[in-house]
């Protein structure tokens, strides 16, 4: 009988030990979960900001394309006029 009592006591103590281990683990678990949620939130905000930037950039790209066209026109002007004048001068000299 006393042998069984000892075993029961041992089990009880062991179960207590397990409970305290779980409690200790809970604390660490909460911190990790909190950290995971913080990271998740961080990525979500970052993604929202990137989305906003992508939308903003569409407008900027339009402005840059417009500027490209203006510059392209000016360069065409310059190049063609330059060729035209110089060739005309050459042809005049040849005549």
């Amino acid at each position, binding site marked *: 009988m006393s042998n069984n009592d000892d075993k029961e006591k041992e089990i009880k103590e062991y179960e207590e030990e397990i409970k305290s*281990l779980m409690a200790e683990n809970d604390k660490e678990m909460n911190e990790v979960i909190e950290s995971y949620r913080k990271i998740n939130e961080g990525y979500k905000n970052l993604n929202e900001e990137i989305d906003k930037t992508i939308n903003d950039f569409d407008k900027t790209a339009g402005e840059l394309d417009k500027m490209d066209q203006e510059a392209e026109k000016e360069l*065409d002007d310059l190049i063609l006029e330059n060729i035209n004048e110089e060739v005309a001068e050459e042809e005049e000299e040849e005549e």
Partner: protein
Amino acid sequence: MPNYEKPKTSPEELKEVEKKEVIFYDNKSIFEKMSDKAKKIASAVYEGVYQMPVANRIVGKMEIAYNQKIIDIYDKKMAKRKNKLDAIDYCLNILRQQRKNCLSSKKELEKEGVPGTASLEIQLKKIAQQKEEFLNKRDKIQTKFEAKENKRDLFIEKRDAVAKKLIDYYEEKLKPYEQKLESFNKEKARWEQLLQETELRHQNIEQRLKELEDKKTHLEELYKKMGWSERKIKHVESTKEIEKYVAGKRKQLHLERESIEKEILKNQKKISKLETKVNPYLDKKQAFIRVTERQKIDYKVKKRERGTRREEETREEETEEEEIREEGIEEEEVETEEKLGMEEEKEKVFEKEPEFALKEVINKWNNYLKEEHSDVFKTYGIDELIFAKESGLKLDKNFKISEWNRLMKEYLNLYQQVDEEKINNFIKDFNKKLSLGMEEEKEKVFEKEPEFALKEVINKWNNYLKEEHSDVFKTYGIDELIFAKESGLKLDKNFKISEWNRLMKEYLNLYQQVDEEKINNFIKDFNKKLSK
């Protein structure tokens, strides 16, 4: 324009230029008005742009505008005129020499009372007439050269203005996005770091959960030892609780981690989407900058000072006559023979400055650097092909060392900020080694040279300029304090004239592009006066 004389483009292909809308719509009217030859050239020039995606066409057009082919349209005509100018200058020099000889002979005849000066007078008139004709011709060519140069420069100016406006606009518009991309990547890295740390803690928890599972097994064994059946053990509250706890915690951690993984994937896609949108424009901006770094050719044609050239010519002639007169007087002054002897000897030294072919002197310079200063060879070593290309000079052309020194310094300064003091020391040492034989001879002459304190000689030089060439005093006059500061020399230190000449030329070259021929003439004249 040899590049364009035989364009491959056929008339059918010409139509393609219009069809493919390579040329900006508003400019088509210019294109339509062009002659066939001009159209052919234009389509040959625009050929590469056909294959470019529309978004990148601006880079293609910028490349055209910065392509030497376009500048060549002007440069080739300018080069032709420059050659003509050089040829006329050469003839003018010959005429100048002939005139000098005539004057000298005339003087000689007059002195000895020999008749025949009248025919020399006729010859002098003829020379003057020829000179006048050459000068008129030169004026016309120079006007054409300058007109072409102005046109080229105007084209370059307009082209650069377009490029600058575009680059500035790109800079302004893209800067916030470059900054955002950088800050997004930084923030991403911050979350990655925190995730790594959290995952380590997650692993520790997993370790503990495994420990709990082991403990559950051990607990079941303890119950077994107590004689409990397996069925009864399965219903023990504590073991059930452990099992539920471990499974629950594992699931919770997995779900949290999985949710982050989804956001990370989204984040990767979004950053990549943003970069895909922004990067082509950033690349374009870089391409603009790269293209605009190409440089124009400088023909180094002396700028004409309108209305004053004739006066200069007259002054030159007067100087020649004066020189001849002076030479005559000097011959009569027996007591100045010693000084004159020295003067002539010095002239010989000037004349004796050795000449080397460009290729040879570059080779010698590189060898000198390799032997004496191998650590700076990468910085000061010269690639003969690039040098020839940049300077537009032929590798087999002969140069005086002083001329080569100047060219080399200009070339090195093109690519990097050279250490002025260092390069001057190298040059001095190199020149010494190069003309060692001549140096010894020079030393002998220099031994006889008079010495002057730096302050004194600067003063004399400035006075000489004020008296003789007041119009260029502003250009060639020397401020003694700046000179002393730049050269690191004391004003009361004594110097031989030749040494002073060298220092002064270096100093003047520091602040401006001096006219080498002019300054050499001034120096010769000044030295002559000084030694008298």
